């Protein structure tokens, strides 16, 4: 009897903190479902950052100049850092990073659909920075106010760095559209491939996303999928115009009445397919991650053995 009352009181305090727009901290009592939702979200977010290194990492050794190579290297290194910030945040919820990595390489936890598309040309490096990191910024900025303190703080660090990612991508595209016809064509072709997958980054339409409302009530999610998608389209259209390229949607038009751009419905069956494993690169991405992890095993063991030896000599 007293146990239930205690539980109710704890629940009440938790809800008061959320209602006052304050932050829940690691050792606070929290509902089990809240904790699980956060572990799932933060872990899969971290996996996305880590897997997200692969499409662009593929181009580091083939960068067209030392300047572009240094920039791309720094950007990919940032993504590794984002993964680490997020694993650290997930660990405050009582999970272990090694276990999360294990769940990633065994396919029990996923990463974002967008990284299952290949980067086929150097224009893709620019378009990924512009559209993919741009869409990530739309998703991530509201997470800086997430109700869970460690996640919100990690997101503040990440968002500061994402701005560099988007701007370096756009600058690369500006250089290309001011180059030759062939370069302009590369930018257009890359944009055509990444536009729809970028819109899909915001998830299915609100009507098909029943978990969203609980996450919003908990202050984990601040805007719905459709709100963020609209915001992204509105921000991106003038940027495409400035590049002198078109976005591959005949339905795209300014709607005076709504004060927003209208746009066509993405192909949700494609998103379904890519998420459930049939995207162009799903198997390759996990195989690569697993290989890197396995090949690092002896390094992790050697470092631990060295640490033990040093410790015993003290």
């Amino acid at each position: 009897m007293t146990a239930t009352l205690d539980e109710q009181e704890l629940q009440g305090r938790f809800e008061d903190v959320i209602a006052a727009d304050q932050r829940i901290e690691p050792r606070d009592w929290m509902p089990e479902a809240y904790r699980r939702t956060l572990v799932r979200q933060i872990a899969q977010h971290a996996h996305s950052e880590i897997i997200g290194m692969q499409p662009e990492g593929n181009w580091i050794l083939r960068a067209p100049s030392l300047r572009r190579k240094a920039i791309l290297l720094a950007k990919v290194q940032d993504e590794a850092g984002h993964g680490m910030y997020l694993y650290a945040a997930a660990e405050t919820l009582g999970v272990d990073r090694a276990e999360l990595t294990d769940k990633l390489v065994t396919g029990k936890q996923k990463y974002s659909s967008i990284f299952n598309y290949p980067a086929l040309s150097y224009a893709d490096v620019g378009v990924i920075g512009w559209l993919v990191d741009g869409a990530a910024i739309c998703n991530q900025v509201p997470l800086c106010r997430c109700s869970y303190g460690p996640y919100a703080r990690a997101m503040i660090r990440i968002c500061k760095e994402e701005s560099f990612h988007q701007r370096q991508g756009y600058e690369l595209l500006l250089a290309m559209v001011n180059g030759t016809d062939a370069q302009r064509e590369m930018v257009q072709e890359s944009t055509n491939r990444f536009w729809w997958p970028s819109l899909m980054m915001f998830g299915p339409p609100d009507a098909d996303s029943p978990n969203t409302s609980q996450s919003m009530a908990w202050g984990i999610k601040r805007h719905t999928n459709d709100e963020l998608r609209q915001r992204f389209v509105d921000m991106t259209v003038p940027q495409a115009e400035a590049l002198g390229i078109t976005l591959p949607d005949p339905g795209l038009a300014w709607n005076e009445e709504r004060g927003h751009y209208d746009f066509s419905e993405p192909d949700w069956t494609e998103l379904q397919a890519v998420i459930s494993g049939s995207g162009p690169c799903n198997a390759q991405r996990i195989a690569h991650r697993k290989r890197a992890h396995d090949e690092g095993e002896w390094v992790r063991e050697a470092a631990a053995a060295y640490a033990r030896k040093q410790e015993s000599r003290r």
Partner: protein
Amino acid sequence: MTEYTAEGGHGAVPTEGVPTGSGTTKGSWPLYEVFVRGKRGLNHVHVGSIHAADAEMALHNARDLYTRRNEGVSIWVVLASDITASSPAEKDPFFAPAGDKVYRHPTFYAIPEEVPHL
């Protein structure tokens, strides 16, 4: 059909049937908490944590992770298991002794307005 939505930074991931971990550690490197002094004159501030085999590696990795853009001039790393903390609740009786001592604040004392420099 698996439920999926835009969660986290890069969007659509599944939300159902995703195991969230048992919390068991698999003998991985220990966890260090990281504190960074942003610049001279400021306190070290907690910025996050990092796994490392030993303290020296923790310092190097913390530098690479938390100060890639000159965010720090000094780093402390502390084994997470060595930290002793108060209980987290805001209404914690641990902090009650400070609650009723209003006379510790300058605003407790009424001073006539014409008295200068007080």
